[in-house]
């Protein structure tokens, strides 16, 4: 399996890089890139492979983050025990949202808006109720040890993030080589045709949003372990939703490596613009935005589809001419 070999090489290379340097800047950059890749890959499972564009993936992120903190602070659980609970909670929220939206056949922009609304509802709830600490947010007490999932050096977190990303990559590789994945892509491309050959779109999309939510919840739990603080705006605000989907779209939706590539490129771009234009507040965001627009405009398949896009641009005219002259039936309708 080429996908599995690629994932193994990737894991070894990143781990080697993490051990090769003690530079805090490098380790921190690596960690944040892996973290962004995890969120992007989580979004990619539902958005890229399932064709369901969520604008509210922070919903699952925030659920994972809050459950991770609350289980430790209020529940007195160990962080390693809290982690699967946080992931399961996010998956359950995914199941609930999926059951509601997919049951009523919400698609496209309607689905996007409903997920955005759910994230906002959760944000407001997190401000309003007591057990989340309200608008003040929640602190995770500093107890630095691997047993508490709080590593003294960034290297530990790099390896933890790498572990999550590898799991996300393996899950994506499974989507590419399994019946579930084939059906998910079939539903993405044409729901009626999928139904005609015995695929239940509701069950398939529900499975995808559960998997996607679980990965996003792991991202939320990771965030809390690193930064030891969460509030409603960080947890459920649109910034995280956008971060996840932009990296996936820039890198290439519905591909194995696109989200990782997108996360790496966007992280490098953000760092570069901040270093170059940091003394002029706002300019870095303008440059960042312009580059994003250029990527989305000229590379509709994302960065990982550059080769294909270029081939189509160069070979498009030639191919249609060949088809017309070949006499094997010209297309008559669209």
């Amino acid at each position, binding site marked *: 399996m080429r996908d599995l070999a690629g994932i193994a090489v990737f894991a070894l290379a990143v781990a080697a890089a993490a051990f090769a340097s003690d530079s805090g800047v490098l380790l921190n950059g690596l960690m944040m890139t892996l973290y962004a890749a995890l969120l992007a890959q989580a979004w990619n499972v539902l958005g890229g492979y399932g064709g369901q564009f969520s604008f509210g993936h922070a919903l699952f992120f925030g659920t994972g983050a809050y459950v991770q903190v609350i289980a430790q602070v209020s529940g007195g659980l160990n962080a390693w025990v809290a982690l699967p609970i946080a992931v399961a909670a996010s998956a359950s929220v995914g199941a609930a949202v999926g059951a509601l939206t997919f049951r009523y056949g919400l698609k496209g922009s309607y689905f996007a808006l409903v997920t955005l609304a759910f994230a906002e509802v959760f944000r407001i709830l997190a401000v309003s109720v007591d057990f989340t600490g309200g608008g003040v947010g929640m602190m995770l007490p500093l107890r630095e040890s691997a047993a508490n999932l709080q590593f003294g050096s960034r290297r530990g977190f790099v390896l933890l993030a790498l572990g999550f990303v590898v799991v996300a990559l393996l899950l994506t590789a499974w989507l590419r080589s399994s019946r579930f994945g*084939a059906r998910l892509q*079939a539903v993405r491309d044409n729901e009626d045709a999928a139904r005609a050959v015995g695929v239940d779109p509701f069950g398939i999309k529900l499975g995808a949003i559960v998997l996607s939510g679980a990965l996003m919840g792991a991202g939320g739990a990771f965030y809390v372990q690193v930064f030891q603080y969460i509030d409603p705006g960080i947890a459920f605000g649109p910034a995280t939703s956008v971060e996840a989907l932009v990296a996936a779209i820039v890198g290439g939706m519905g591909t194995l490596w696109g989200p990782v590539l997108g996360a790496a490129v966007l992280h490098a771009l953000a760092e570069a613009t901040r270093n170059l234009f940091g003394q002029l507040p706002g300019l870095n965001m303008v440059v960042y935005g312009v580059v994003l627009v250029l990527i989305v405009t000229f590379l509709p398949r994302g960065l990982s589809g550059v080769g294909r896009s270029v081939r189509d641009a160069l070979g498009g005219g030639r191919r249609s001419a060949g088809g017309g002259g070949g006499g094997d*039936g010209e297309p008559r309708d669209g």
Partner: protein
Amino acid sequence: MAEPLLALSGVSKAFGGLRAVQDVELALPAGTLAALIGPNGAGKTTLFALMSGFLRPDAGTIRFDGRDVTGRPAHLAARAGMTRTFQIVQPFAAQTVRENVAVGAHLHERRRSAALAAAERVAERVGLGPQLDKPAADLTVAGRKRLELARALATRPKLLLLDEVLAGLNPQEIAEMIPVVRGIADGGVTVLMIEHVMQAVMHLAEHVWVLAQGRLIAQGAPAQVTADPAVVEAYLGHGTAARLRGGAAATAPAAARTGPAGSEGDRAPVGPARGPGGAR
């Protein structure tokens, strides 16, 4: 006599004030290759949608393979052994031919490798062998029609509902496709086809139902049905049967249908008023 594989009784469906299908009775014995014909907008595709669960009938029952399947969700139809194709082809455009057909094969094959191998066999059978690794979006119309057929066939159906697999093809492509459909039927699959290309209907079908303005107006062997004055009038308008009588009454509908067959007029599942019979 055994129960028919597919039996419709009193099936009706209306869209608002438009009665697309009215009180249809139809019994299709296992092992037949039958056709459903009728003017544009007669309700043929709507009837297919009702059979396969894409639409729920307002009245009547549909029995398939000994079970009442009225209003059952569409994805369960294929699992029970009834698979439809679409008149307007619906490929998974981003995927290759092999992957497209494998989605159908996955109905019975859990493993990816088994499904891909099955897809390859089915694609060879309908003449898509050389194009297995092409993206579906790059296929010609004829290729897409074959793909539609292959994907449905890969679900190993007992009953295959073919919605105009010959529409939009040129005469040579039609001639290539006819033996493919015949081969599927000879392989033990019961086939019901909606078809405008009368040459194919005459060649293939053992039994023909004629639908006009939502009602079944005739049935029988192809030659018998095309000679029926009611059928001639449904296609060509009131009074034509009398005018044609004495001349070439038996061949008139056939001649009438081979022309518009390539023009792909019958797009929407609704709109019986467009039939020429209704206009006069």
